[in-house]
């Protein structure tokens, strides 16, 4: 009954220096289906797509398009074969017209000149096929991202694509826009196009997908009809059972439930369209609040709004009961908030400066350039933190870029501790560092918390969140779905909450 697949990827292996990104990965796409490709960060989704679109060539394995083996060498090549891709960021030219963006590179010509009439007519037709009626002569940048995304899809389809790959197309869209996109996808399904849909959003996966392929650690875990795979099952399949065994056991007998009656910071309905649904959070001094959720659930978005990096569009923040507006990191710092960002290398350390200079940076910024810290004080302070946090280095003058990831992270911690903050936001502090360093960092978090700091802890390792948190706010698809006591919770209870009522 079922038709034959239009595209089959078999036993795809791909290694990068030091990493095995894909091991015998498999994928089947049938005409007229939306197929979700799911997996945690680093599961191999993007590598698989890169192999399919010719960005990377596989070490072994084969790709069959309509039973014919293919080996695309470039995005262009894949497109000529009928495999079109819409990448996460819109890869169009914002300064050109909508019509031009759809046809540039293959303009119809009339004599020596470009046939603009034909381009506009065909562009309008291509967009109408996606149920979009816009003035195609207008500049692309005048339209919201959702429309730009649709224009990118129209461009991808204008090459007679049989397979359409959408790499996280919804990550910058709001609900309405996602719904429009899905309408268009359903239309494409009817026309028999096979759509591969990569997303982190569970709701969206179930709203549009017919089947789901799950990857984990570069391996094919399974291919399931979406209707037969429950949410909890899906999460368990994605996360796997190989949970950090140390995580549960070492949970410390933590501080008292609520050391102060009033939260240090109280957040009500903080949100921004397209980024985060309104969220309520209370963070107490002497407590660690963990943010639990899958990738893309809104953890980092929440942290960035709290620190004033991204402007919240709604909601209120009160610190010690007094309302405040945190619309810039400077204001947040003045309120005693410190933030260690997710991307240590680009947003955290200044690689060429010494450890001392990196540690002193935030404090000096807070004091202002006219109240220069004498070098003697700086050195004393740096040495103090090197000792206190156990940063392994011969001396404080070594460039921080030469330290290991774990020690860099500790130095960043020191940078913010030096400003004597009241609250510390840690976004993925344990990412990319070895297990021993992870444990050290987590211990440091607990120590600082006992000293009375309020801490917001973010990690994609659920076991780590469970290990350090007194309470856990659980996020799903950019909204808070619940809050549980960190001591009572285990992974299954958090996952059940993420999966929601349907599980």
């Amino acid at each position: 009954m079922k038709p034959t697949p239009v595209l089959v990827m078999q036993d795809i292996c791909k290694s990068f220096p030091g990493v095995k990104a894909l091991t015998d990965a498999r994928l089947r796409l049938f005409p007229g289906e939306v197929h979700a490709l799911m997996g945690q960060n680093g599961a191999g989704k993007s590598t698989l797509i890169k192999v399919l679109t010719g960005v990377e060539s596989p070490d072994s394995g084969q790709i069959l398009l309509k039973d014919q083996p293919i080996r695309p060498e470039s995005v262009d090549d894949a497109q000529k074969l009928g495999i079109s891709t819409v990448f996460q960021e819109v890869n169009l030219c914002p300064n050109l017209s909508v019509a031009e963006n759809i046809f540039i590179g293959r303009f119809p010509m009339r004599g020596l000149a470009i046939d603009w009439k034909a381009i506009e007519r065909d562009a309008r037709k291509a967009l109408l096929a996606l149920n979009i009626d816009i003035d195609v002569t207008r500049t692309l940048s005048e339209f919201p991202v959702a429309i730009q995304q649709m224009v990118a899809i129209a461009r991808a389809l204008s090459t007679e694509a049989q397979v359409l790959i959408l790499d996280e197309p919804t990550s910058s869209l709001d609900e309405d826009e996602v719904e429009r996109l899905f309408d268009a996808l359903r239309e494409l399904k009817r026309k028999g196009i096979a759509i591969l849909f990569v997303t982190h959003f569970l709701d969206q996966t179930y709203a549009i997908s017919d089947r789901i392929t799950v990857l984990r650690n570069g391996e094919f875990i399974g291919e399931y009809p979406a209707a037969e795979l429950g949410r909890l099952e899906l999460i368990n399949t994605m996360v796997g059972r190989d949970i950090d065994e140390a995580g549960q056991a070492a949970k410390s007998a933590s501080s008292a439930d609520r050391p102060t009656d009033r939260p240090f910071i109280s957040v009500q309905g903080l949100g921004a369209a397209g980024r985060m649904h309104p969220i309520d959070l209370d963070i107490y001094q002497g407590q660690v609040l963990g943010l639990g959720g899958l990738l893309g659930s809104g953890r980092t978005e929440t942290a960035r709004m709290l620190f004033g990096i991204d402007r919240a569009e709604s909601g209120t923040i009160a610190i010690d009961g007094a309302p405040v507006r945190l619309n810039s990191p400077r204001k947040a710092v003045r309120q005693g908030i410190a933030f260690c960002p997710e991307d240590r290398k680009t947003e955290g350390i200044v690689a060429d400066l010494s450890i001392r200079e990196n540690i002193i940076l935030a404090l000096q910024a807070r004091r202002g350039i006219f109240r220069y810290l004498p070098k003697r004080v700086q050195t004393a302070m740096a040495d103090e933190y090197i000792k206190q946090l156990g940063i392994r280095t011969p001396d404080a003058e070594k460039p921080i870029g030469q330290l290991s990831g774990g020690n860099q992270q500790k130095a960043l911690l020191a940078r913010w501790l030096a400003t004597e903050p009241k609250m510390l936001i840690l976004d993925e502090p344990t990412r990319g560092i070895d297990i021993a360093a992870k444990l050290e960092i987590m211990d440091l978090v607990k120590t600082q918390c006992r000293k009375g700091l309020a801490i917001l802890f973010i990690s994609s390792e659920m076991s780590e969140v469970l290990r350090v948190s007194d309470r856990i706010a659980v996020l799903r698809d950019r909204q808070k779905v619940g809050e549980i006591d960190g001591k009572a919770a285990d992974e299954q209870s958090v996952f059940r909450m993420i999966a929601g009522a349907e599980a």
Partner: protein
Amino acid sequence: MNLAGTINTRTLPLLVTSVLFALLFGFGSVSYDNFFSVQVFLNLLIDNAFVAVVAIGMTFVILTGGIDLSVGSIVALTTMVTAALVEQQHWSIWVVVPLVLAIGSLFGLLMGSLIHYFRMQPFIVTLGGMFLARGLCYVISIDSIAITDPTYAAISEYRISFGEEAFLSVSAIISLLTLALAIFLAQYTRFGRTVYAIGGNERSALLMGLPVGRTKILVYTLSGFCSALGGVLVTFYMLSGYGLHALGLEMDAIAAAVIGGTLLTGGVGYVAGSLVGVMILGVIQSLIAFDGSLSSWWTRIAIGVLLCAFCLMQRLLEQGGSNLGAIFSYWKKPAEGSAPAR
């Protein structure tokens, strides 16, 4: 297409520039006797023909997000090579002109290749080209060489009349032809649209399979060609070759392009705007000349103020422009029924 649809953040700077030109010209007409005449207007074209041609080449470079500082020096070098060959070697104009155009293009091609293949900054590469070409002038001669060749003199004096008292020079006609060709190139050829795409987002242009490298090299070649052509027009205008000709012309060309609505970051602008930009620079000069009491340096002051004002306007438009899109309703299917309750 209605009027409101035609005027948007892209075309508004050009419109403002044109209106400003009309205002300045009108101001001159009211303030000074004999200012309001067809010939004063045409003289702007005649006196600034070489600036216009150079600015046209510059516009293509800026549209890709690059810059070409070498144009003034290439103009000077062209006049020097021309004067030396025509006066000292007695070569024919029909050999010399194609030769200097080829030299200018080659100069641009080399700079473009350096910029593309070695990923060097256009600013530095063309700054080097600027010093090099200017220096080469003095290798030929440190003095001005007058051109006495009868063909040059004839072309220089030739006037194409329109009606009774209006006329254009050969140079002005050449610059108008160049403009027409440049507009066609920019709007109706793959090369031109690739230039815009590169300026809009070079990475996207690459991912869309456009010939980014080739186009970038060609753009500098085109600018080199336009500079050499501008140099030829200078020899018609000045009848001499001199290493100090066209000093600072690159800055006038950049100013004309920016005042004409071209964004220095690339991707936005019109070639025709640069001609209007040149005409504005010209009309300011004329106003000051007609006034007679002001130093000619007031031209610079006026240009400086204008330039800042235009950059400010573009920035404000850009910020306002991002909100424009939200105003228009664009979906064919209104979200009836399917609209989620909020």
